[in-house]
């Protein structure tokens, strides 16, 4: 760190000092991890180059397994994207004060992960050169088109929703002079934090938080509908819309928890991501693990009870057949581990939530797998032979690159923006403590 920057930093408040330090100070470990992630990402890009050059034949996809890893990752990533926006929006709307230190990191996950999710179907295309046909020859009855619309809207609104609440922080960085003034002058877009500007900002954030919730819900509903609108066994289900939304939020919470543990450790943010945050989010995780079980049970019971032969083939292939391992691992990861850990207060710590969060992420990825693959390989017409699917190294490399690319960009972002919202912390200290006290006083009977 240059001396001048150090001096500038020293003149700032404690919050600012702690939260802006990562922007100007980079450890050796950071470089190592970045290089590693960049290498994996590059490797995946080479794999994709091969896929484009030779054709989708380079994947393990086949007939009837038309969709595989890419679509699984698509659903998974878009699911994760519900982490931020939805949670932060809901918490903002409901005036949950403990949200203040976690909104930024969550929203950032959202924006990046939508991008990485949205490119998955394009990677999956046989003719990526014709992707614009989706706009040129749009066929509005196709759920895929609903999806394009919905994800596009979601991406735009989330980016705005990330950016607008970041303005005061960008202004702080601009004014501090610790980073390139030209960049931050541009990014801060003339925000001066005048009372009028602040009031307008808060009004915009309030409106955005409300708009973004239905959009987020629609995104994953529509993804569920992509499957549900076909006549395939165990896809053609009315529950898929809400089931996918619930699953998305679930995996989103898990993703935030994992990110928070890592950030807290890497940047020493113990004061901002406190035990109470992990406790609260842990409770949320517990709630969703129960919800997940409820939905899954409802879904499988309906399929089982009907006993329709096509459905049953897919059903048994998951419960006892070739997909028993992914299926029961999913149950372990999505239900048993989070339920048993999060139902105990002593485990709703950073360590406990990290374990539960990772289990849920793996479980939710497998849930997507268990939706896409077993149905694909079990065609409805019983005289059709059962398919097989073994992902090729190309698919696995591209999946690895997607994960590493996401983490890489997230890490790089922490070098440009404070990962905890400085002004919201400040606002919490200056106004909200009193505001909450007033609010609570308001709830109480006045005849004391």
């Amino acid at each position, binding site marked *: 760190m240059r001396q001048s920057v150090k001096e500038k930093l020293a003149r700032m408040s404690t919050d600012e000092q702690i939260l802006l330090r990562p922007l100007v100070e980079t450890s050796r470990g950071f470089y190592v991890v970045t290089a590693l992630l960049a290498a994996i990402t590059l490797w995946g*890009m080479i794999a994709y180059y091969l896929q*484009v*050059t030779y*054709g989708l034949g380079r994947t393990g996809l086949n007939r009837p397994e038309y969709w595989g890893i890419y679509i699984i990752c698509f659903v998974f990533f878009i699911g994760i994207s519900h982490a931020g926006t939805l949670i932060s929006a809901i918490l903002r709307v409901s005036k949950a004060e403990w949200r203040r230190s976690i909104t930024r990191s969550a929203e950032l996950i959202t924006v990046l992960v939508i991008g990485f999710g949205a490119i998955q179907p394009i990677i999956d295309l046989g*003719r990526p*050169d014709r992707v614009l046909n989706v706009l040129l020859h749009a066929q509005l009855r196709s759920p895929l088109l609903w999806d394009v619309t919905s994800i596009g809207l979601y991406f735009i609104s989330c980016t705005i929703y990330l950016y607008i609440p970041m303005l005061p922080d960008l202004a702080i960085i601009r004014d501090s002079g610790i980073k*390139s003034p030209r*960049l931050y002058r541009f990014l801060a877009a003339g925000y001066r934090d005048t009372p009028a500007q602040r009031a307008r900002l808060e009004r915009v954030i309030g409106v955005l938080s409300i708009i973004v919730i239905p959009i987020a819900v629609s995104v994953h509903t529509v993804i569920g509908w992509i499957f549900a609108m076909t006549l395939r066994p165990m896809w053609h289900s009315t529950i898929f819309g809400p089931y996918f939304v619930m699953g998305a939020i679930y995996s989103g919470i898990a993703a935030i928890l994992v990110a928070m543990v890592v950030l807290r450790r890497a940047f020493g943010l113990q004061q901002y991501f406190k035990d109470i945050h992990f406790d609260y989010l842990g409770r949320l995780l517990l709630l969703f693990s129960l919800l997940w079980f409820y939905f899954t049970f409802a879904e499988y019971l309906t399929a089982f009870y009907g006993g329709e032969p096509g459905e049953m083939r897919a059903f048994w292939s998951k419960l006892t057949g070739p997909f028993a391992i992914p299926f029961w691992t999913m149950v372990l990861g999505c239900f048993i581990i989070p339920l048993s850990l999060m139902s105990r207060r002593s485990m709703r710590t950073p360590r406990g939530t990290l374990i539960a969060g990772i289990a849920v992420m793996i479980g939710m990825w497998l849930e997507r797998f268990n939706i896409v693959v077993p149905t694909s390989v079990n065609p409805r017409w019983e005289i059709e*032979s059962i398919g097989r699917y073994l992902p090729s190294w190309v698919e696995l490399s591209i999946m690895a690159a997607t994960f590493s690319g996401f983490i890489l960009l997230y890490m790089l972002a922490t070098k440009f923006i404070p990962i905890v919202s400085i002004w919201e912390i400040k606002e919490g200290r200056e106004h909200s403590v009193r505001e909450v006290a007033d609010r609570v006083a308001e709830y109480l009977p006045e005849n004391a």
Partner: protein
Amino acid sequence: MSPSRRDFLWTMGAAAATVALKGTQDVFWSSEELADPGWAPGIEDRRNSACLICPSRCGIRSRQVDGRLVRIDGNPLHPLSRGGLCPRGVAGVQMLYHPERLDAPLVRNGPRGSGQWERVTREQAIARIAERLGGLREAGRPEALALLAGYSAGTMQDLWRQFLASFGSPNYVADEYDDGTEAVMALMHGIPRRPSYDLDRARLVLSFGAPLFESWWSPLQAFVAFANPDDEGDGGPRYIQVDTRFSRTAARTHEWVGVRPGTHAVLALGIAYVLIRDELFDAGFVARHVAGFEDFVDEQGQPREGYRSLVMRNYRTEEVSAITGVPVARITALARAIAANRPAVAVCGTDVTLAPNGLLAGLAVHSINVLMGSVNRPGGVLFGEDAPITALGSPVLDEIARQGVSRQPIGVSPSPFASGGQALRFAEIVARSEAPVDTLLLYYANPIASSTHPSVWRETLDKIPFLVSFSPFLDETSEYADVILPDLLPYERWQDAPAPVSYPYPVWGVARPLVEPHEGATHTGDAVLALARSLGGSLAESLPYESFEGLLEERAKGLYAVRRGMTLGGHFERTHHRQMEERGWWLPEHTGFEAFWEELVERGGWTDLFYDHTDPHRLARTDSGRIELMPAALLRVLDQAESVGALYLDIESEATGERPEDHELRLLPYRVSTLASGTLALERWLAEQPGIFPDVLWHPWIEVAPETAGTLGLGDGTDVWVVSPRGRYRARLKVSPGTAPETACAPYGLRHPDGQIANPLQLLDGSSDPLTGLPSWSSTFIRLERA
């Protein structure tokens, strides 16, 4: 952000985009690349011709665009195939344009098998062969020339025979697929000709192991009768298949009777028992035309049991049921069905005759036809005739030739009722150096791939100094050749295509060039004529034809002169002609031979759909003039050789030879579709649906019952070794519920994707029918090992 970093990113991005675009170009080529520049709609042509891929010789209709053969359909005028065609016929375009066809005559340039070849001109190659053959005649040993020929019925076969005879060689060695029925007919009827089956007019077809729908003489004949396209009503005959193997035929005929391996003939006599017991047989026919039904006194004056006594004593339904595994009620029902649906015809297949006692079993099966009077009657077994084309004339023999042809042909069977197996005996004799063969000509024969004894054939080929192959492809046997003069492919050449004997009426199809013949290939017929010219003398005199096409035209004059039959025509014309001829009428329709020939070629051939059912010569030509149920010649042989068996008694195909302890599965090889011996399966489209299993493609497989697979612990799709004491080969396990327990059904004629042959015949135990010399296909036991 510094400008340099930004530049770097831009450069990287631009580079990535360029690379991606280039890749896109490589993969997204499409029809534009295939079309020639300046492509315009082509000039189309359709021609009738004949398919030369299998013995069925169906009629085809081609579609050419700008001289390219783009499609093969059926010729609706052809009376046998009536516009239908099997997948092999349709896939012929892939054979014609196969990238691996030889594009020039080759002369071997290094040691055998080294794969070093020199390309030569046609004239050089013919001169090279002529030189060698001339030398043989000069040395006075013309019998050192031999020809190994696959199925080539028609003028090519006649031409080869004429050539060999006038050359002085008796060695026309047939490497054909033989079903042994010729010997059955010779013994019972005194007519040495394979039977024809009038499937079209039968009401019930009872097939004993005949692969009617897959690799019979003509699957199309069976298909057409099955579908009965000319019948307005509900359809053709009822087909019943008696078969151990759950074949395509077993799967799709109206009824499948699954019998234990080798017990087909026992079931036949069980049915005969019911027919006699319940007096359901045609007693009048038997009384008028059949000898040996009742007990009789033989030539030596010994009293003998007749057919009735033998059957009634030995084939009570309970016993037959115990042997065959077919319930008593079913046996009775079959007999009643035969009696109720007359005319009924029993078809004898290779599963019956390719067995250690195949001839006896074949006689037992055919005896049902005799009992039911289904011989020489509409809907029964008929004795058809060949098309009356002009004969080639007797060969002119000079002194050398006379001496040569008087010698014993190599490999003629010592068996009393020889029917086949000459090729293998030839190979064994030559391999043992007991008969010096100097030159062997290979015409549509690839014994290294198709034989039961490839190793013997390798030795044989090593013993023969000069090998000439006429194969259009470099097959396994041709790799040993000294000279390869590749034949034209079908669709490029003139050839006559007589319908197989199984069809009751003479059909003389004509295949003609549909596309410009390949420059590097030579019509073998023309090559033979050129050789004869070049050798001169008696050969040139015996074969005075300019070209093979001219020879065919010459032979068609016989058809023009015979004053019956018709050039191929549609349903109306066929019916009209038949009805006219039945009433003794025939009208000339052509102004002269030229017009007749032109129309014959235009329509794809000639046929005569009239069969004279009143001709007694088509019933029996035995000394007694009756059908012999107890043929004296056979009884003599059986009396002398005790071990061979007894007529109508030893007809079950038992396992013979050594059976190692752990070899528990009986091997049942079968031909997947009609593969003329020695040809390659070249068409990739066919590899995508070779059998009856939609999920089995490309790889040779072996079928076992689910129970067997369970016991062995092998799952569907496992690669296994099929092992017998004689050898092993690799195949993929197919669990098939229709397969009989303790059997393994192995397709024959397939190759692995890398071109390796998967030949179950090389595992056979080597036993054969001592009466006919035919190999036994169903008496070998194997085991399976995980590969």
